[in-house]
């Protein structure tokens, strides 16, 4: 079955206002093409679930698409510096206040694991005494619960499944049926890709089913788990994709400077999101020289 769509079609068909949306990829394989199309289509009141908030979350917050964020952290790793839209939303309610639920990365992974594996909850590492335990918003008392281990009697923290309405995953390659492959260090991709019922994949390359069958150990999502496939080369820029391209730290730094002010951020959106029709337009703007510099070489 051919599940190929354009990004525009996939987002219009599968992402609805008010849904919880998980964008997979840790600081690698970030679904920027998904995020920018969500911004262009002016989706509203979404709950973003993401392991590494990063400037992807920052852009969705600044563009006013999100009502809620569930994430272990939101920042710009280059510098490092603040995620300024995130800061404005939390500190000053600009463009509007957001509700934030914070996990530790490991407890986030455990909650994702519960969702991906059909479990009622997962035990996680101790959190009592931390701000993460103390401060609760979206999930309230259900954020973390504590019980005595029925085996040893020791205290155990528990998290419940973190299951999004829809998962968006950027991968190295997929076939038209949705068999999707990622390799290199995976972060939380295998878990987050499988946390939701509905999964949309974007891929650097669309390959023949035979290519998938040759290296099945690279597959993180078998085709039956995938509702739609988008061919989106450089779909994770400015993040990195193993054996495809490196992280664009210069772009991240420029974004950091631009997003310091509301005006600067709006200008960034005009230029890189609203000002281009799709990812192909973005790539044209990025230029072939830059692509050449970032393209994976044999030696890191």
């Amino acid at each position: 079955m051919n599940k190929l769509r354009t990004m525009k079609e996939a987002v219009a068909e599968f992402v609805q206002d008010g849904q919880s949306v998980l964008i997979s990829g840790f600081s690698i394989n970030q679904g920027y093409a998904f995020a920018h199309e969500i911004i262009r289509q002016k989706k509203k009141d979404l709950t973003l679930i993401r392991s590494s908030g990063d400037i992807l979350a920052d852009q969705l917050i600044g563009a006013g698409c999100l009502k809620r964020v569930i994430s272990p952290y939101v920042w710009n790793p280059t510098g490092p510096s603040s995620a300024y839209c995130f800061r404005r939303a939390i500190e000053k309610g600009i463009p509007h206040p957001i509700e934030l639920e914070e996990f530790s990365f490991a407890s986030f992974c455990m909650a994702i694991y519960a969702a991906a594996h059909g479990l009622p909850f997962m035990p996680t590492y101790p959190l009592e005494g931390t701000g993460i335990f103390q401060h609760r918003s979206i999930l309230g008392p259900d954020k973390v619960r504590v019980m005595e281990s029925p085996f040893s009697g020791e205290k155990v923290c528990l998290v419940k499944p973190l299951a999004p309405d829809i998962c968006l995953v950027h991968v190295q390659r997929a076939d038209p049926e949705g068999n999707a492959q990622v390799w290199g260090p995976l972060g939380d991709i295998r878990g987050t890709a499988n946390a939701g019922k509905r999964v949309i994949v974007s891929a650097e390359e669309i390959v023949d089913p035979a290519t998938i069958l040759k290296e099945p150990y690279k597959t993180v999502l078998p085709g039956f788990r995938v509702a739609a496939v988008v061919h989106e080369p450089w779909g994770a820029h400015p993040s990195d994709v193993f054996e495809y391209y490196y992280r664009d730290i210069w772009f991240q730094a420029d974004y950091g400077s631009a997003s310091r002010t509301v005006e600067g951020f709006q200008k960034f959106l005009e230029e890189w999101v609203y000002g281009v029709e799709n990812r192909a337009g973005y790539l044209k703007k990025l230029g072939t020289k830059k692509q050449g510099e970032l393209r994976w070489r044999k030696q890191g």
Partner: protein
Amino acid sequence: MEKFTPFEMMILTAAKQIKNGDALFVGFHWPMVASRVARRLHAPDIYSVYEGGGVERTYCPVMPNTGADLILGPHLAFAGETYDTLCGFLAAGHLRLSMIDAPMVDRYGNINSTCIGPYRQPKARLAGSGGAADLGANSRKLIMLSDRTTKDGYPARVDYVTTPGYLDGFDSRIKAGFRPDTGPEMIISCLGLFKFDPVSKEAYLWGVYPGAEVEKIRTSVGWELKVADKLAAIPPPETEEMKVVREELDIAESRLWKIPGR
């Protein structure tokens, strides 16, 4: 004597905690620089474990943006998942030590990297935990690195406990459910080296760099600092050691890292 800044000394002293052959968890920021310095000076055969699922085995000439930066590609002995590294090797106790950045650390070794001021209405909102809370929970020997030199970097109590240290001191960490073999080991900072009292779990000054003034250190932390009866004197750096520290800071700067004093 080879000239040095307290910041350079902090990086070098941290690097010296790493033994050749170690498997260690490397948190973001200064721990990355310290582990690279160690790899070049005396510990070429270490495994640097990162939360993104990678385990670095050889020296990468380019400074990674974060521990998950794929520029590390050809230097990885293991490319797995966060479930393997942060939830696996670290949590199951297979790593001798961990290092974490401590932008604000209090008298009981709790780190705040979440917010300045009240959580609901912060004066400044920072990044948040990432794996920092898990490093505090599961590290068998957690070494904290601070580049701060003033009181706001060393409050009596942090505004928000991102990384759990000894919480309220004494047995409060155990009561909260943390394993007895986990917890902070020392703070290596621009001020000097701090260890934790075995009973009260309060940080005290354990060692100083050449030329440091104890009185000045006392007034740079937010609590009444206790000082070891016999203060350890950290020896001055060798020329080669400082050369490597500076080269690594140059490499970091070339990759857009902000370096204190530059």
